């Protein structure tokens, strides 16, 4: 395999401790190495920024609800009357779509921005075969998917009775069956309660019939997670998303993590990952006095080392919301009267898809935008704070560069803030105007590389440029001595000068060269537990009694996952 040496670049890497000093990076056989032979191809990165390949800790790019979005939003490929489909390059496949792009566009766009790993954040176990088929077809980037457990009948019954061993055996069985990566929990109890027309608005609302509270579910899932020593912590989307005054529920949910200690061999230091916290940091009693409570939430996150978060920042675009939080999507569909799709996934979870327009002329959307930026700006520990748009819920992932530019350039975000129709009202309701902090390139490398790798338990192979790690390297046309501002910074992040995936050069000057030589891997966790007859009996019984599919048709067989990267626990 070709050897590469990247010379004279300004390296930003939290793993090796480079903070913009000029250093060389060497690659051989798909790994970062100390030195290479004289025949190595030299890449001149003078005046450029060199970072590891980025990791997206929370995104929705594969699975049935993404596909439902593609089906029922044909207009998504025309944004503001313009076609969003790229013309065809002979070496790449056709790309289309904006907020819910095709799998090809997803892979290529992430690669152009320098991303190497994506975490598909919600996989309904019943539809995991479909999810893995889409993951297989997404080029270049490595992926993993987390099955949803927060509304699962089995888990309710085991956790209600305090049978952690059985819960752990069930989770291990499920991860093996669905080729899943970790425990995702969406609106614990609420999505199940919605089948009764109800919801769980606080952590103490019991789920009808099961009589278990969200608090018990979250605590039980964390216990199970640590019992199994899984690489990633529990990935929580807490109750009461998107409602004014919901920050108290968020704090209640986060407090559950206080009593737990991480127990794993992957370098993970957290026990709970709270996702898209922007949607959970709202104050006020209604949309009229809606305000930001990001400071209160982030103060708690900053002083609690067991918690990691991602921001879920709004990008003020027309997008498609999709979540396993069924009741919320119903509520949103009734709010904007556009289109609405919901489904209940048998015993496991539910899901919904609704288009949404984050309009800069609407006060509430502007406040949401401000909260999304305040969250990373208030963060004391960049290693526990990740920048996401919860693609596509708060905005498409193709807007990450714009988000970085807003965070790194105060004038750029203030110009937008002051141009809003209700600027004074938005400034009164938020903290953004008072914040002078600008995220540095080193902090950005922690938030998008080393941080997510550590939280996902992948810090041994990803998120840095230490020898032995996967050779994922992104080089941007950014000179740290003379940084671009605003839109130019955005463009520099959107189209990397070079991107290497596992030591293969896939992007040069923002153009995808050829995706075929890259081996795209799917990560999953093989958790081993002693054989548990009770759980297997329960599973067989439920499948006979309730499921619409046969147990033999449930497992994701190897055919669906051609390039597996198995993490043995």
């Amino acid at each position, binding site marked *: 395999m070709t050897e590469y040496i990247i010379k004279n670049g300004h390296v930003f890497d939290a793993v090796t401790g480079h903070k913009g000093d000029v250093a060389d990076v060497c690659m051989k056989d798909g790994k970062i190495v100390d030195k290479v032979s004289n025949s190595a191809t030299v890449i001149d990165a003078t005046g450029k920024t060199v970072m590891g390949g980025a990791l997206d800790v929370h995104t929705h790019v594969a699975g049935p609800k993404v596909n439902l979005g593609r089906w029922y939003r*044909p*207009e*998504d490929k*025309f944004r503001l*009357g313009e076609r969003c489909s790229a*013309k*065809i390059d002979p070496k790449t496949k*056709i790309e289309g779509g904006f907020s819910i792009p095709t799998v090809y566009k997803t892979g290529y766009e992430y690669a152009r921005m320098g991303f190497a790993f994506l975490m598909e954040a919600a996989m309904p176990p019943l539809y995991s075969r479909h999810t893995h088929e889409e993951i297989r077809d997404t080029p270049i980037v490595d992926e993993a998917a987390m099955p949803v457990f927060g509304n699962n009948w089995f888990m309710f019954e085991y956790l209600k009775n305090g049978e952690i061993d059985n819960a752990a055996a069930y989770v291990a069985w499920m991860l093996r069956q669905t080729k899943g990566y970790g425990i995702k929990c969406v609106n614990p109890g609420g999505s199940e309660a919605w089948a009764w027309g109800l919801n769980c608005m606080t952590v103490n609302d019991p789920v009808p019939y099961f009589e278990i509270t969200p608090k018990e579910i979250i605590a039980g899932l964390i216990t199970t997670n640590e019992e199994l020593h899984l690489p990633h912590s529990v990935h929580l989307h807490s109750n009461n998303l998107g409602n004014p005054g919901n920050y108290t529920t968020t704090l209640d949910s986060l407090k559950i993590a206080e009593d737990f200690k991480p127990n794993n061999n992957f370098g993970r230091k957290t026990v709970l990952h709270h996702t898209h916290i922007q949607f959970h940091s709202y104050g006020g009693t209604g949309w009229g006095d809606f305000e930001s409570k990001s400071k209160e939430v982030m103060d708690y996150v900053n002083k609690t080392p067991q918690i990691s978060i991602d921001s879920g920042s709004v990008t003020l675009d027309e997008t498609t919301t999709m979540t396993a939080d069924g009741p919320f999507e119903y509520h949103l569909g009734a709010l904007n009267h*556009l*289109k609405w799709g919901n489904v209940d996934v048998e015993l496991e979870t539910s899901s919904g898809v609704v288009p949404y327009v984050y309009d800069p002329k609407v006060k509430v959307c502007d406040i949401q935008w401000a909260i999304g930026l305040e969250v990373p700006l208030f963060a004391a520990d960049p290693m526990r704070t990740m920048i996401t748009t919860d693609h596509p819920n708060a905005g498409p992932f193709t807007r990450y560069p714009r988000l970085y530019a807003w965070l790194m350039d105060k004038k750029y975000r203030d110009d937008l803030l002051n141009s809003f129709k209700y600027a004074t009202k938005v400034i009164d309701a938020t903290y953004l105007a008072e914040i002078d902090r600008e995220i540095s390139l080193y902090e950005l490398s922690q938030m998008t590389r080393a941080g997510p790798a550590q939280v996902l338990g992948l810090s041994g192979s990803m998120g840095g440029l230490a020898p032995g790690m996967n050779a994922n390297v992104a080089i941007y046309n950014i000179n740290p001595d003379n940084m671009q501002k605003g839109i130019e910074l955005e463009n520099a992040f959107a189209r990397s000068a070079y991107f290497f995936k596992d030591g293969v050069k896939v992007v040069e000057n923002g153009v995808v060269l050829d995706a075929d030589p890259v081996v795209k891997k799917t990560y999953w966790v093989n958790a081993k537990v002693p054989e548990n007859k009770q759980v297997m009996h329960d599973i067989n019984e439920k499948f006979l009694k309730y499921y619409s599919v046969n147990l033999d048709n449930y497992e994701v067989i190897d055919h669906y996952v051609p390039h597996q990267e198995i993490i043995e626990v």
Partner: protein
Amino acid sequence: MKTVTIKLKKVPTLYLECESVTPDKFAGKSLEAIAALPCSEGKSNYKLGDWFEISGSAGATAEETKIDVYGPGTSKCKYFGAWMSAGEVVVNGTADMFTGSWMTGGKLHVKGDVRSFSGLQMKGGEMLVDGRAWNYLGAAYRGDWRGMQGGLIRIKGDAGSDLGTFMNGGTIIVEGNVDIHIGTHAEGGTIIVKGKAHRRVGGQMVKGEIYVFQGCDVMMPGFRKIEEREIEVDGEKQVFNVFIGDLGERHSKSKGEVVYGHLYTLKE
């Protein structure tokens, strides 16, 4: 006004996507630069010069530019005049899908028919068709909820189904008959049909006006007659039966304003 004449060299096998054929793209360009504009047939990319013989000269701005399009085979070309904002386009023949879609200004004259999805989501300008129109004239793009917002479409012949879906403004005049599903989900705008309509006129309509001179075969159950009134439509004064739809009352609960969709038929 200066004129650029483009003439197809041969009939395309697949459909030719002519997004570049607008005064906005042609304005201020030399003939060589116009010939270098992109177009595609299926998945193959070409230049306009590969398909068209180009003569004449373009004006400095879009307003001063007129494009004359000649066949053979204009009926296999899509997107004529789409996204145009000023100037004039004349198509001497039939045009395929998306003709005049997303127009914001200027004039488009098609001397033959236009096929489905023409005049989609227009915001301004004028589109005149001498022949007939197929389905989804002046409608929203499929899946979208933002239909025609302004401008004028005049069809000399008949039109197909699903005309003016999600219409929000502007005027569509059809001098012949129309098929089913007229003005579905309309929230504004005017549709004038001088012939007759089949069924399902004004379904889910909350605002806007539909004139059907020779009446509908079957009226939607939500409409009721309120009066007979003399109205001037398209330059002629005539007495109409006035119907209002019931969805406006439900709409008023969320928007705070009582509005009705109006349907007019000629009093016999």
